[in-house]
């Protein structure tokens, strides 16, 4: 039997897709912001801490990196509230999950970035009498940020793709919008033919924009 493509239903509910896409990008953005705070704090705790803090950071990183994100999403949304006797909405839960998840990856990124700050720069800061806090804010942090920028953009793209998992706990992002249209109009072929390119083009556009940003802030060499 011949199947006739009919995109009318997809256009009719297109706002579900656009708002979904906007939410996907927002989820990724908020998550990476919180993830950066977690990652940076833990990277500093790891470099300055004793054996116990280091062990705790390593345990967190290893646990999160070796468990599927889908399981973490369920664990945070269904598992933890069931034991604590409280509840939070799906979006909050997903942002928390994605932030915890990205934090575990960003710890490694920031640790490598902090290691990449040349010793001599810190010593020079000491020599001109900067306080430890000034040395951190004026020297280590900005240099480190420039070093880790490419890794951060890769992490952001990968988080943007991971937001599709939010659909399993009914956060109304792009994949959820696609599934909604599929369920309500049975136009699954059309909807995925539209949503697939949306993900691709958005991902590539974000990547191109971030590469531009990297070029602007990169350390020397490539102007």
């Amino acid at each position, binding site marked *: 039997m011949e199947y006739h493509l009919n995109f009318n239903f997809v256009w009719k509910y297109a706002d579900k897709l656009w708002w979904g896409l906007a939410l996907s990008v927002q989820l990724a953005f908020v998550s990476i912001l919180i993830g950066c705070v977690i990652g940076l704090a833990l990277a500093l705790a790891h470099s300055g801490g004793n054996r116990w803090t280091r062990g705790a950071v390593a345990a967190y990183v*290893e*646990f999160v*990196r070796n*468990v*599927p994100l889908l*399981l973490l999403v369920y664990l945070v949304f269904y598992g933890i509230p*069931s034991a604590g006797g409280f509840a939070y909405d799906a979006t909050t839960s997903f942002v928390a999950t994605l932030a915890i998840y990205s934090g575990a990856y960003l710890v490694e990124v920031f640790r490598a970035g902090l290691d990449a700050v040349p010793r001599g720069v810190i010593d020079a800061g000491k020599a001109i009498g900067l306080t430890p806090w000034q040395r951190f804010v004026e020297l280590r942090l900005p240099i480190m940020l420039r070093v880790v920028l490419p890794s951060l953009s890769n992490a952001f793209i990968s988080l943007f793709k991971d937001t599709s998992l939010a659909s399993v706990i009914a956060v109304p992002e792009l994949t959820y919008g696609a599934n909604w249209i599929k369920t309500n109009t049975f136009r699954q*072929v059309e909807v*995925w033919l539209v949503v697939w390119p949306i993900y691709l083009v958005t991902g590539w556009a974000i990547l191109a924009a971030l590469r531009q940003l990297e070029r602007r802030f990169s350390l020397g060499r490539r102007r």
Partner: protein
Amino acid sequence: MIDFALRTLPFLWDGLLVTLHVSAVVLVASLALGVAAGVGFAYGPLWVRLPLRLCSDVLRGTPLLVLIFCVYYLLPFAGLNLQPFPAAVIALSAFKSAHVAEIARGAISSIAPGQVDAGKAIGLTFAQRLAWVVFPQALRRFLPPWVNSVTDTVKGSSLVSLVGIVDLMLAAQQVIGRTYEPLPVYVLAALMYFAINYALSVASRRLEARFAYIRE
């Protein structure tokens, strides 16, 4: 608690076997496809490299979950009616192949061109040069990142639960559906995933240390 775990484990164990089955099939398929694509990337002419680049970028630019749904819902439209299991395995394998291809491309291009020229000079055919000159050397650069990426496949296989395949993830969900005890079951499932993936991560780190000498 222990009693609960003992009653739950058989169900999760069955799911774990499915997870391992899916992962193994995907790994074998993606290894074959990915290495072939990697050779194409490294030595192919432009009309091979361009389509490969396009395929690789499209596959790696799509969220894995979206790719699974696309294969599951779009292939029937192309005349290929698939059960959930083959559809999910095809999607995971395609995704993984693109990643393996990039690892293989990097490993193969890291071999000095002089090695291939020397192979040509002593009269080896292309297949012989690959088998006796390039692959043995590239293997050392390929193996550590590849073993590390195996954890991604095991983790990614959890998404097959969303098209109704009863892997470890869905087995855990089903147990929760009967017991209404989400936290212990999820933690148990997480520990099972962790055990597999942590072993793989450690193996990858060992391999990396073992082959560290070629990186001077």
